[in-house]
């Protein structure tokens, strides 16, 4: 085969591939969409993904949603798996901040937190600072105390990032004490071993008002009204002039996926996440849907990664 015919064959093949992609986009989706989560079977993320797959499948144009667990390496294995699949819209990645924190803590991370196209948020939990009212009645007294003496804040790494982000913007410093689970940090808070617990809003509801008050919601996304009220309407980071940090359950795709496929998926995802029946199912499971559409989610994601990159240095 001559050099010229090789090139011709290559061009023909490329055209055929290109046409194939275009055709695929037109009738996307058919068959099975693989819904990849970077956590093992049985955990909270797994439960929610499976619930979404069964409740929301009818919004995905006849395609079926198949949840795949790819745990490991601080939730980065699943991400790498998604990037190794064809960029055809049939592999979706549904994760939390966990893999982002892993990638940002790693010195030579295998991939970058930007190696994904964000198509929506399914939920976004907040880091709420819970304190004892007699020690810190409000945010100003808390900041004043931070200037005077060392104050210990306990929580999981993600939630501590939310706390460090606002405290740094307030020009103060604190001692961040990392815990493997929120349960352990709350136990130490209740026992009086740490001054502040950084917890999600659902955990905060188990502490407030009997054992503490919600000092601040460090998130960039508002809490549902009833939750906010039950927590005594704590100020939000943005109310005090800070940029906040939310912790989303985000959904994304391989960045090389054709744009029309991604647009179609984002539409279907929005229809599913805003369906009152789907929302009621999540509400009943105690994990209400807080939906952000593609544009809003992508903007928040970019800001979140930037903020986390800065805040992660504060924890060490």
């Amino acid at each position, binding site marked *: 085969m001559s050099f010229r015919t090789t090139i011709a064959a290559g061009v023909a093949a490329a055209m055929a591939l290109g046409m194939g992609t275009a055709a695929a986009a037109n009738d996307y989706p058919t068959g099975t969409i693989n819904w990849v989560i970077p956590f093992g079977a049985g955990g909270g993320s797994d439960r929610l993904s499976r619930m979404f797959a069964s409740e929301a499948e009818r919004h995905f144009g006849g395609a079926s949603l198949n949840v795949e667990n790819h745990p490991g390496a601080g939730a980065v294995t699943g991400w790498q798996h998604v990037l190794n699949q064809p960029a055809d819209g049939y592999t979706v990645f549904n994760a939390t901040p966990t893999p982002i924190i892993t990638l940002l803590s790693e010195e030579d991370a295998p991939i970058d937190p930007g190696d994904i196209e964000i198509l929506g948020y399914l939920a976004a939990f907040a880091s709420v600072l819970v304190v004892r009212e007699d020690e810190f009645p409000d945010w100003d007294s808390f900041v004043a105390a931070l200037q005077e003496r060392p104050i210990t804040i306990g929580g999981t790494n993600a939630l501590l990032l939310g706390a460090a982000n606002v405290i740094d913007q307030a020009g103060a410093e604190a001692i961040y004490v990392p815990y493997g689970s929120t349960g*352990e940090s709350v136990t130490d808070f209740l026992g009086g071993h740490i001054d502040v617990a950084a917890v999600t809003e659902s955990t905060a509801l188990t502490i407030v008002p009997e054992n503490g008050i919600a000092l601040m919601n460090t998130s960039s996304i508002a809490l549902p009204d009833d939750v906010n009220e039950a927590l005594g309407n704590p100020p939000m980071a943005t109310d005090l002039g800070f940029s906040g940090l939310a912790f989303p359950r985000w959904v994304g795709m391989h960045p090389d996926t054709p744009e029309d496929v991604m647009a179609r998926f984002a539409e279907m995802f929005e229809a599913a996440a805003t369906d009152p029946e789907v929302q009621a199912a999540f509400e009943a499971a105690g994990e209400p849907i807080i939906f952000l559409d593609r544009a809003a989610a992508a903007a928040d994601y970019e800001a979140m990664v930037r903020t986390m990159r800065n805040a992660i240095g504060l924890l060490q």
Partner: protein
Amino acid sequence: MQIEAFYDALALVFTVQTMFWLLIGVFLGVGLGAIPGLTASTGIALMLPLSFTLDITGALGLLIGLYKGAVFGGSISAISFATPGAPDSAATVYDGYKLTKKGKGRKAILTALYSSVTADTASDIVVILVAPTIALLALQFGPTERLWLMVVAITLLGTLSGRHLAKGMLSAGIGLFLGTIGADPVSNVARNTFGQDWLRDGIHLVPLVIGIFAMSQMLDQGLELLRKTRKGQQVEKSTKDLFGKSSEGLTFREYLSCWREMGIGIGVGTFVGALPGLGATVAAFMSYGIAKQAFPEKKIGEGSIHGIAAAEAGNNATVGPTLVPLLAFGIPGSATAALIGAALILQGITPSPRMFSLHAEVIYALFIILILGNFANLGIGRMFAFVYARLGQVPGEVLVPIIMVMAVIGAFAARGDPADVYMMLGLGFLGFLMRRVGIPEAPLVITFLIAPLLEENLRRALLINRGDWGGALFGSALGIGLAGFAVLVLVITFRMNVGNRLAQIGHEEDKNGK
């Protein structure tokens, strides 16, 4: 007591599914216990992936039932063939097998069953009464105090090490190292991973336990099979009609006459079980040893039902109390407790003192299952013990490959990660080598469980005290008290040579038996 939570718990427990899984658990447990080489830990490790697919009470029923059944089941083969089904039944061999040789195997097995169930029930009641109070106290335990509690657990390992303290410590050292693999608990940076990404999450409990407890034993037994021992066939002939209906049973008067031995077993078992780090084997030997010294007139060791009652009450009395450190402090005191803790975490419930207020219904359900499990154990043990006695004769050629396949499936199924299978096989080989040179596995598993917790708490204590070691270690009276207790345990272990003495009891009896 929150009466509403109690009603919720009743509704959770008294369902067809929960009862079904509890019975299945006990049924499998007694069988696994009766098969030499398979222990409660093996069984729970193999069943854990299945339990993840059940609801919370079903999972607890399966695991707790299996545990209770297996601790009793070990006595069946100890009595029938002088081969303890699990190490915790080793003390039962001395009297049990002698009774079998006298044609009183039926009496011996019934003694084991009744004393097991009696002691198990009594110690469960103690747990139900005491655990909520301990959990309230546990809030006083911050990082410093928890740190010392775990040091106490490690110092207690000396008694698990048998005659060779150094071998026990080597095992503990391997466990400590395995426990540090993965992301650093404070800065989240990977370490000791040898550059392997898949080690970043550390070594998981399920492949570790399956590898160390199940695979290593099967490799060992597989090798024995290749060498083909003839011992098994000899036994087969002699036990065929040992347990016929015509042979002597156990009268109620005889059962009552064992009350002192059962009392010793309940006391020792409850105490030893509640201490993190020790377990059924130590309790059985201690209880047996104390009863033997206290009542020389009962001729324990020469084929007396009183020896069986002491040993079997001792090991079963640890079942409930082993959950106390888990429920109260979130510290798994044994491999089994850690597996039950893993099942709880997968159901979204982190074991901690707050469990009693946040998930009171789950705690009550667990208490109810603890008690119900004893009735299931009694019923199933009574009906099938003599059938199970034959299980010990299942040829290794059948058993070893089946368990090996189950080990591979179990290691993969827990998280669906193929790396876990390689890890399990590697650890199985490690466990096999350790068995060959006489290094005990228990200290490895316990330090593996405790090492990460110990490190986290030490580093948190240091962070809270801004790097001041004095404050981090001795910042509270409770911390100093626990540190003193750890030193005391260490001194007693060395001065009194506890590990050696426990091993000695076994050794002397072995000699007497010959």
